[in-house]
């Protein structure tokens, strides 16, 4: 008989995992500070979620992403609350890939990152289009307007914009997590639930 979701989350959140997930939520919220300091045109706002999905597990990653979006809304970016379904997909999909051993080989990480980007674009597009009319108060809004001005409908324009930006963002996030986990000492990794995913 499959375990209830609450039990699965509790199984993952043992020992060092609980404070680590809390750190990753904070990392999701402050990643923008690092990219701004380095002047890199990427969001990397799901890097903590991906890290948790690999080192702890998918359920914790879902919790991590949802809590990060909830807190982002509380700290002055209210639209983030509507994108919780997107982070749920990111957490679940990355956790699934990690369990299948995709974070052991760099080429699988590249494929996984691109797939994740496409998936994130497809899930976020209907929310962005139907809830916000394609306007996310970001520079990428100009891309949506451009695609609309050349004759595409709103949903297609948002999907094209997402496909243009999300795969790169997720690919870089996946590669960073891959190199980070490769360089971590085994004695530290072994204290986390998903250490076998990167072994």
């Amino acid at each position, binding site marked *: 008989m499959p375990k209830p979701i609450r039990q699965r989350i509790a199984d993952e959140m043992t020992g060092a*995992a609980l404070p680590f997930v*809390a750190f990753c939520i904070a*990392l999701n919220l402050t990643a923008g*500070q690092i990219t701004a*300091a380095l002047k890199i045109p990427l969001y990397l706002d799901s890097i903590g979620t991906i890290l948790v999905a690999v080192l702890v597990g998918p359920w914790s990653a879902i919790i991590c992403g949802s809590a990060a979006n909830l807190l982002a809304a509380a700290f002055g970016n209210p639209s983030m609350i509507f994108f919780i379904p997107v982070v749920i997909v990111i957490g679940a999909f990355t956790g699934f890939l990690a369990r299948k051993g995709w974070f052991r080989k760099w080429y699988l990480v590249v494929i996984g990152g691109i797939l994740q980007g496409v998936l994130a674009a497809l899930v976020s597009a209907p929310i962005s289009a139907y809830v*916000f009319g394609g306007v996310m108060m970001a520079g990428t809004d100009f891309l949506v307007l451009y695609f609309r001005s050349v004759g595409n409908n709103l949903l297609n324009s948002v999907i094209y914009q997402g496909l243009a930006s999300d795969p790169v963002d997720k690919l*870089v996030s996946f590669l960073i997590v891959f190199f980070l986990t490769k360089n971590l000492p085994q004695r530290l990794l072994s*204290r986390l639930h998903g250490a076998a995913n990167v072994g």
Partner: protein
Amino acid sequence: MKANLDLPSKLSLVFFLWVCAFTLPWTFQVGLCLLLVIARFAIPAFRPVSHRSAAAFSKFILYSITVALLVTCLNALFIRSGNVVATLLGFSFYEDGLLFGLRTASRLILLSFSVLMFFISTPLTVFIDYLQSKGLPQYLVLMLLLTLHFLDHLPSRIHQIFLAQQARGAPVDSGVLSRTRALLSILSPLVLSSIVESIERGTALELRGFLSRPVASRKPEDTETRVNLLTICFYFMSLVIIAYSIYRWLNV
């Protein structure tokens, strides 16, 4: 039956405003946004809980005005259907784009306003406590509180690592690819130190028996058992608006 604006009634108000954002015409939505701005100053329950919240609210008002103008103008400029409303410096603004921009901007601002009003007037610890009283597991409550701790310390830690790596000659000012690679030199020590800290904290929690201890069920507080009139009103109005919208949609 009580009728004060407590946390559950504020949540029901957020739900009501979300319903309005998706069903009512944009003119009503603008009206509701203005009412929310007045409520922030007039109703004690909506007063910001800190200077930081008050600053976030003021910043959001300025941001909203800019976004509304930008979204409306850009859509009127790019979506070229309907009549030309105005021509400025050789650029034509079209009616359909203008209306779409107004609808989008007003919905975006109302949705954002509703969430922001809730969070600026509700201390996070109170909200977390409320979630716990509604059945949120104790370890998730601790996780949220730990996140607040990390959020306090992380920016200064990132700044410190950034300066250290810059001093060591990390390529933080060269091309985009080098800067992206420099990300690793900042994130590696950050993640490593966080795992070490997590292990220490996790061990401390385990030694105290936090994760194995059976959680005492919390007794629902007296205030939670009473029905709040405002909560009922907001949910009732939401249902009426939804029913009316469905009726109108079926007739069209």
